[in-house]
């Protein structure tokens, strides 16, 4: 069981959260200008790093807010959490 630090509620068990995939995938400025391949790339293709990975999580059973977490995909260690709209600290590396 992971203990995830919600930026609003503090440490809570993993079961209280929902997972939202890779963070910082920007919606295309003009989707209509994209080719099918580019659109598919946006919709379906995600990074798959070995190491730090910035992800979106939602605290479904608590404050119901989305936030970002940097998780090491090898160790499951979460090294940073930050609210949506906030930027990752410069010290964070990885995808």
């Amino acid at each position: 069981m992971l203990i995830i630090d919600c930026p609003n509620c503090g440490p809570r068990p993993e079961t209280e959260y929902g997972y939202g995939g890779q963070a910082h995938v920007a919606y295309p400025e003009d989707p209509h200008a994209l080719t099918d391949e580019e659109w598919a790339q946006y919709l379906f293709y995600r990074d798959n790093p070995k190491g730090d990975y910035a992800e979106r999580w939602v605290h479904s059973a608590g404050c119901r807010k989305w936030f970002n977490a940097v998780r090491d995909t090898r160790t499951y260690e979460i090294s940073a959490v930050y609210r949506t709209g906030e930027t990752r600290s410069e010290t964070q590396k990885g995808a």
Partner: protein
Amino acid sequence: MTMTAPEDTTVEVAAHVPPVDRARVLALRRSPAQGLDEEMRRGSGAAARLREVPFLTQVAIRATPGRDGSLTETLGLDLPTHVGEVAGAGDGNGLAVLWLSPDEFLAVGPDEAESGVSPEAYAGGLAEALGSERGQAVDVSANRTTLELSGSRARSVLEKSCELDLHPRVFPVGAAVATLLGSTGVILWRTGEDTWRVMPRASFATHVVRWLLDGMREYR
């Protein structure tokens, strides 16, 4: 096409509707765990007791603290600012405002039958107090019911299926959080040293009552 306001029709209809006897309406209500009264009584012992506190007034408030018009004046309370904080009556005797998220709060007050204030009217007043600020105040009294678990082993019962640290050092009297009890989302509110309010959604009431009763069996 333009919308036209109904004219005398409303007046006419109203004239034929007999005045509602509110006390009679209130007497007809059935609470979500009402059918389990007897089961809860039998399952309670000296060390752990369970009962329902039905029909508490609940108003869901969405507002940005500091930008809430005259909401806090109307409430008579400041909005809580951090997780776990309850403004007002932390012991549940009176009006309390629970922190649910940075911009979401739950006002909990006595049953209309006791206070004489209808939840709809109360929520309406709060919504009006918000003025032009972003937010809402909605009567959600039927959304959750309130179960009261008390007794010297009440914390042990909760600890069987709640993963939060419920020790008074971390979870003091007068604190409330939204969390999971087993797999069910509830609001957990410590109203006394040995008294807890568990507020599940109405449709989960039966499940949560039986879940807690099962946890209470060894302390009966």
